[in-house]
């Protein structure tokens, strides 16, 4: 009886299913290719740009045909590759080649702002990248979790570069990423000093004080119910306070150096930590608490063995929210008075002097710091709360 319902029947059935799956995938791939070919054909009818005031066509003496042929070869190679994933890597080379074309033409001194041939060609390249990412995101492990988002971000950066340079956007409005990278390298010592003042001094100290105080008061408020009742409405009030309002006051109270920035950060981070910790402590289930009671465990044991581990996902939530709040708080507070160093100070003074490159470089440092801080906490969270339903690996 069990033999007829189990083993032999399932085998052929699965193979049939797989076969049907392959056929439908093959059919959809052709449609994708067609969508690529149409803009490419349209692109060939348009000029690639203007050189010395004269319109330059695809076959007007530039190297453009070489790029075109290269891309076509990779697409053909991708179609004939032994597996979809290997094909995707070959097609990725085609995407790179397509995006090198405008950079090459720009270096030759070609004006791309009227070169619709190039822009249509790039649209086709974006569709090709779409196909590549679609295929790669089906792959397990690092390819999906690191390579795909990495390629996505890189694609955005390259598009930014090409659009800004191709349409000659003034650097004062929006510099190209390469120019920002240049400014980063050129002003590295200044940026490092700013980073040290703002992040390593103000943010770290303010963050530790704010989160630590929020956590400690939450533990206290958990034992003293009227504290929780009194403080929670204040939390709503505090979250509505504008940073630009309290920052100048804190500068008056605590002076120009880091203590005033740390104070602003404490005001911003204290209540999110308090509220999240209280919610976490309240999240232990009755049955889990009864269990501890049945063991004759007192308040302290119950806190350490049950309630705090159980609250970890909430604690990390608070820490992650605060990581971005702290950085914003420090930078904004520096607008209102600081020793002549710091990321907020740099932005406010260099904007006034129209040195937008340094401003963008500082913004980049801030963005990288913020996401690094957040990402680090997220990794730590994954390591310590792997048991939580939202983190469990299937």
């Amino acid at each position: 009886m069990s033999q007829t319902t189990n083993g032999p029947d399932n085998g052929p059935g699965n193979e049939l299913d797989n076969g049907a799956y392959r056929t439908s995938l093959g059919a959809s791939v052709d449609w994708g290719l067609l969508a690529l070919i149409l803009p490419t054909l349209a692109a060939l009818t348009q000029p690639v740009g203007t050189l010395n005031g004269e319109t330059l066509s695809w076959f007007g003496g530039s190297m453009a045909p070489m790029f075109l042929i290269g891309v076509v070869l990779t697409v053909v190679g991708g179609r004939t590759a032994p597996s979809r994933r290997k094909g995707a890597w070959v097609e990725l080379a085609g995407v790179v080649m397509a995006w090198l074309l405008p950079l090459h033409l720009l270096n030759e001194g070609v004006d791309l702002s009227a070169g619709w041939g190039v822009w249509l060609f790039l649209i086709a390249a974006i569709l090709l990248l779409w196909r590549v990412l679609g295929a790669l995101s089906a792959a397990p492990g690092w390819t999906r979790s690191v390579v795909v988002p990495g390629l996505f971000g890189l694609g955005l950066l390259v598009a930014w570069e090409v659009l800004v340079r191709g349409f000659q956007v003034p650097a004062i409005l929006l510099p190209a990423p390469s120019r920002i990278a240049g400014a980063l390298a050129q002003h590295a010592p200044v940026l490092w000093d700013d980073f040290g003042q703002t992040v390593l001094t103000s943010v770290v100290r303010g963050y530790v004080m704010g989160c630590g105080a929020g956590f400690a008061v939450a533990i206290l408020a958990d034992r003293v119910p009227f504290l929780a009742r009194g403080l929670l409405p204040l939390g709503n009030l505090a979250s509505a306070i504008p940073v630009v309002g309290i920052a100048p006051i804190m500068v008056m109270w605590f002076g120009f150096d880091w203590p005033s920035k740390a104070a602003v950060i404490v005001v911003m981070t204290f209540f999110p930590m308090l509220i999240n910790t209280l919610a976490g402590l309240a999240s232990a289930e009755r049955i889990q608490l009864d269990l501890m009671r049945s063991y004759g465990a007192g308040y302290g044991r119950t806190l350490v063995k049950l309630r705090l581990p159980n609250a970890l996902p909430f604690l990390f939530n608070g820490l992650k929210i605060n990581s971005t709040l702290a950085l914003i708080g420090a930078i904004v507070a520096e607008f209102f008075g600081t020793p002549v160093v710091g990321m907020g100070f740099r932005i406010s003074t260099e904007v006034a002097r129209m040195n937008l490159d340094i401003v963008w470089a500082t913004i980049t440092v801030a963005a990288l710091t913020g996401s690094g801080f957040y990402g680090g906490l997220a990794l730590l969270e994954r390591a310590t709360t792997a048991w939580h339903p939202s983190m469990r690996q299937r």
Partner: protein
Amino acid sequence: MHSPSPPHASGATVRQAPAAPIVQAKNLSLIYPTADGKPVTALSEVSLTIAKGDFVSLIGPSGCGKTTLLRVIADLERPTAGTITVEGLTPEQARLKRLYGYVFQAPALYPWRTVERNVMLPLEIMGLSRAERQARAREELGRVGLAGFERKFPWQLSGGMQQRASIARALALKPDLLLMDEPFGALDEITRDHLNLHLTQLWRGTGKTCVFVTHSIAEAVFLSTRIVVMSPRPGRILDVIDCDLPRERTLDIRESPEFAAIAHRVRDGLKEGHSYDD
């Protein structure tokens, strides 16, 4: 081995066996205040004596106070009137001395601990050495058939295995008294039969006293030496039925006429309770 017994045992115990009572409750009442001003009577004048080595089932419909009675024995609730002793002590003293093991309706395993570390939890609180904790956890997990699952997390186990792990956790305290609150209520019938057989063998093998809350007649008759039939509104004891099947039981016993006769008596008792309802 155990503390001196109280001076006099109640009638039921004298008839049952000469063993000393491990739980003795007299005229227990528990009334909850509620928000709408109408207090709920969860227990009303409940008197019960449980002798050492007994397997006592509390059976009755929902709301009859069977879980409340178990929680009063465990000092998870305080009675509003009446007296109760556990091993001659107040329930609070018994709880603080960790004289009982409690198995809840749900496994209540902590998901951040492995199965083994869950079983070690009460032992950590008792302050046993690491080696001792590990030895006991291994022993009890082996006893409930979970050897080899020490390093798994609870959520990687099936519901039946989780509940077995929670039984191992209760046994790790090495209590004389095991309090079980519908431990198999959420499991499918096949798993439940299997665990019932396992439990009756465990009880016979260890000589512990068990108090077992259930609303399954078959489960109660199969496991118990005595069955306490309870009735709701207000929660009270209707009948205490001796279940004098041989102590060594297999699942086949459920087909015997003796089994059917006792089950019939339990069912009659439950019906009597329901006649008070509309």
